[in-house]
């Protein structure tokens, strides 16, 4: 995954954001997880229509980042999500057949 890639939630996940907390069920792994506040915000940005670098900017707008760690932390987090099968990335925008939370 690189900064210009678009990111979408995997078709294998069910998810809902309730009270600012993202709950995600991996249908293939039968695993239920919740994200912390920042993770939930990132998850809300994963719509298939935003690039990694755009999500980073949205996080910078949302949270203070005096030490400048957000770009690397968010990019790493999205990479981890892709590795674990929560999200998929593509050089082109997703059609968005399953974009709602």
């Amino acid at each position, binding site marked *: 995954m690189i900064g210009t890639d678009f990111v979408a*939630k995997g*078709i*294998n*996940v*069910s*998810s*809902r954001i*309730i*009270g600012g907390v993202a*709950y995600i*069920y991996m*249908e*293939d792994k*039968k*695993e*239920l*997880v*919740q*994200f*912390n506040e*920042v*993770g939930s915000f*990132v998850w809300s940005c994963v719509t298939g229509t935003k690039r990694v670098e755009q999500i980073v900017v949205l996080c910078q707008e949302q949270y203070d980042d005096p030490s400048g760690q957000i770009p690397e932390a968010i990019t790493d*987090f999205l990479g*981890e999500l892709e590795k674990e099968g929560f999200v998929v990335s593509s050089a082109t925008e997703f059609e968005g*057949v*399953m974009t*709602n*939370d």
Partner: protein
Amino acid sequence: MIDKIDVRDMTGMARREIIPISVLVEVCYTCNQNCVHCCLGSHAKKGLRLDQYRQLFVQLAQAGTFFVILTGGEPFTRPDFLDIVKAARKQRLSVTIFTNGTLLIPSIISELKALYVQEVHVSIYSANPEIHDSITGMPGSFQTSTDNIQRMLDEGIGVRIKCPLMNRTADGLEKLKRLARDLGVMIQFTNVITAKNNGDSSTHQLRLTKEQLGSLLADGEAFPYAREPVHFKDNMDCTPCDTVFNGGAIDPCGNVYPCNQWQVKGGNVLETPFLEIWRNAPEFVELRNMRLRHLKQCGTCDLFEFCSRCPGLAMLEDGDLCGCSEAAKSLAEVRRGLDIYPTQSNIFSKI
């Protein structure tokens, strides 16, 4: 940033926040079988239109619903049922399907796999094909259903067998467990044969006898039980059931209930948005204010700790939401004789 959680963490949160986290949607009452124990008084209702289900799932997502159970009747009698599943998945709802499994042609099974449904629950009543078919009224149904279970498993779809036991099938418990083991699926038994949803109690004659219940309830594998009571009379401020906080059921006409067995209508999704019904229907608000202490006999009943009373069934079968449920009482008597108690999960109420 990621924490694994148990589904009970989520349902507990939903209960506190009054979020209908798991909603049962009956997409039709039509069925291709004619089961002797069926709880439906009529099979005429064909369900809402596909576009109405699309709207409904948007509303459920907005209400915070995470899990939907799609059932009938037999949901696959609807030619557009897969489109209904797609509409639910489009809203990222986790979908479980209740079916008799007889209409699952290979192309449907492939689609279910591609849609990542959470689980498909198939009703099997006996490991003896003749007995199963005599219950469904459909010759060959056992073979078709079990063949399709195997096909789904081959595709990697999660399958569970659901089995309501009746007096004519009780002696086949071990064979049913073996069938499930051989197939490699979980099997979920129930001793509950309810009256029909129109109040017709003719199905009660199919219920397990007390002797059969005594033998079956002692089988902790089939019917999990607790060795110590988890249900105390000093918890009388608890609610009789959680489903009116974190559940919900919608019938084929769009009527909203706390549960498909708890026939208190809060409204209709064709007239009022689901969330408004769920949060504000006076009928539901009143049910949420119900406490165990409001139940007429429970506080003085010496079977209390053994009882897993369902308020919906008490209302449907005994005509009194706050009264004694004869079916629950009968079961509690058997548990007391065995010195076993219901588990937290089959009491349902928040303790």
